[in-house]
């Protein structure tokens, strides 16, 4: 009876033009450049003009050893950081939701690095990781261990930065897991206790499957972050020694600085493809296999 009139009125209270201001900013500065990048990645582009050269930039990208290294490093970095974050954050979250002394303090201390400047963290750890005289290797020497050369050794530079990334980001992953664990109804744990399930069984068969949404969130967020990561790597190694710790994002910056705008933009397109090819199927697959209650 009042249906049509009500719908009409509802339309005017929730006008589509409320989208407009956001759409203008977002469209001009995010969507247009994103679409334009597909075209410009196919050009030789300088300050003055651009010339269509087909897939040449992508050929360079997959042939030049320095650029190929950037591609593989990006994958290694993303997988290592997100893997370590899951492996460390889950036990931490279990610990921080149990009845232990100093719980509030521990939560704050683990979380605080998330809020701190990445550049500040990068500079601090560059100093701490100095092979000779740096605090980490000094401490290892006291324990009788000869520490690696961290950032100055081509074989460990990327992984050293990845460790610092985990140090800075594990707090966020832990928080997400804590939120996931807290939302599990306590009846499940009580039922398990009544059935005589031990700590490990409870963890394996109740906590782990029921905080799966949290795992999905942690994996996807840290994969996206890891694949796009730039500032920490740039502060700590500038992609060095040589180009051994370059990632796609640092290649994009280097090519931009060198004035190869087409190649830099091709890097952006490659990064776009890598992120979507990995994240979309993964979030679809992980999201589908929900736990049936």
């Amino acid at each position, binding site marked *: 009876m009042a249906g049509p009139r009500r719908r009409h009125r509802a339309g005017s209270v929730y006008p589509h033009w409320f989208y407009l201001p956001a759409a203008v900013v977002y469209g001009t500065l995010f969507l247009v450049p994103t679409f334009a990048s597909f075209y410009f990645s196919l050009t030789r582009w300088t300050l003055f003009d651009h010339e269509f050269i087909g897939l040449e930039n992508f050929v360079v990208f997959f042939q030049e050893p320095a650029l190929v290294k950037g591609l593989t490093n990006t994958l290694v970095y993303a997988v290592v950081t997100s893997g370590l974050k899951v492996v460390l954050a889950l036990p931490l979250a279990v610990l921080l939701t149990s009845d232990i002394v100093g719980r509030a303090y521990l939560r704050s201390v683990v979380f605080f690095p998330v809020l701190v400047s990445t550049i500040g963290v990068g500079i601090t750890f560059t100093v701490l990781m100095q092979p000779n005289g740096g605090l980490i290797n000094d401490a290892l020497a006291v324990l009788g261990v000869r520490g690696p050369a961290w950032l100055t050794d081509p074989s460990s530079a990327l992984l050293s930065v990845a460790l610092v990334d985990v140090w800075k980001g594990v707090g966020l992953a832990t928080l997400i897991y804590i939120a996931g664990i807290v939302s599990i109804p306590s009846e499940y744990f009580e039922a398990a206790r009544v059935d005589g399930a031990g700590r490990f069984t409870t963890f394996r068969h109740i906590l782990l499957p029921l905080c799966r949404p949290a795992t999905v969130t942690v994996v996807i967020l840290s994969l996206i972050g890891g694949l796009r990561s730039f500032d920490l790597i740039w502060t700590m190694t500038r992609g060095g020694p040589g180009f051994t710790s370059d990632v796609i994002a640092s290649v994009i*910056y280097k090519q931009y600085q060198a004035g190869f705008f087409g190649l830099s933009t091709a890097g952006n397109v490659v990064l776009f493809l890598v992120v979507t090819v990995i994240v979309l199927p993964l979030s679809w697959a992980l999201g589908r296999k929900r736990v049936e209650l």
Partner: protein
Amino acid sequence: MLGGVAILASAVVFLVPFAFVVLTAFKDRAQSAELDFSWPRQFRFAQNFVDVVTARDYTLIIAFVNSAILTVASVAVMVVLAAMVAFVLQRRPGRWTKVVDFVVLSGLIIPPAVVPTIRVLQGLGLFRTMTGLILIEVAFGLSFCVLLFRNFLATVPRELDDSAVIDGAGPFRVFFLVVFPLMRSVAVTAVVVQSVVVYNDFTNPLYFLPGDKNVTVQLTLYNFQSQYGTQYNLLFTNILLITIPPLLAFLVANRRIVAGLTAGAVKG
């Protein structure tokens, strides 16, 4: 027992690096170059502070002013625009909802294309301007805020809007006088989280606002890294000063930040 071990381990892993920053910021130049974890022989913080602040014609002060302008302006605009989008998106499901959802989500996933963005900014005359960078931060931060607001609006009953409409309110009044005030708590969350994000942002100022005149605090730190390569006391004084704003945000609004960062995480 377990608690004791955890406290000890957390102190070694998480507190020692921060203590190192503070101790080094208090040392004189010679001792700071030793790079060890030791008590300062002389407390030189006042001198280090003056040296860092006055370096390169007070660059750090200018940088703090620039960062403040950037953070306040971009977060204010971002939050209002995102709230308007979330309001219509949540209240008026229809053909457009799925499209808008998709576009919003892609903003969280897709890495921005750098050089084309610079080209667009140049075309608008906004490259190397503070206004340009503010709009960039707005564009890149919108998606997070829209999702946060939309989830929250689902819990605000529609009847409130309807009763305002019956009282003769138009969309502007319904939104700004009825709905937006109800969103206060989640808006505070968005403001705090995005302030920390924008303040700590390094990449976007590096690309879109290069040059000494408009430098932000993260960029001064980056520049000081090469300039003060051997003056670790000054480098770490700079880090210490730059860490103060996030520390304040953490002390004042930790709960809000946590709420914002974990929202939606458990629903999957």
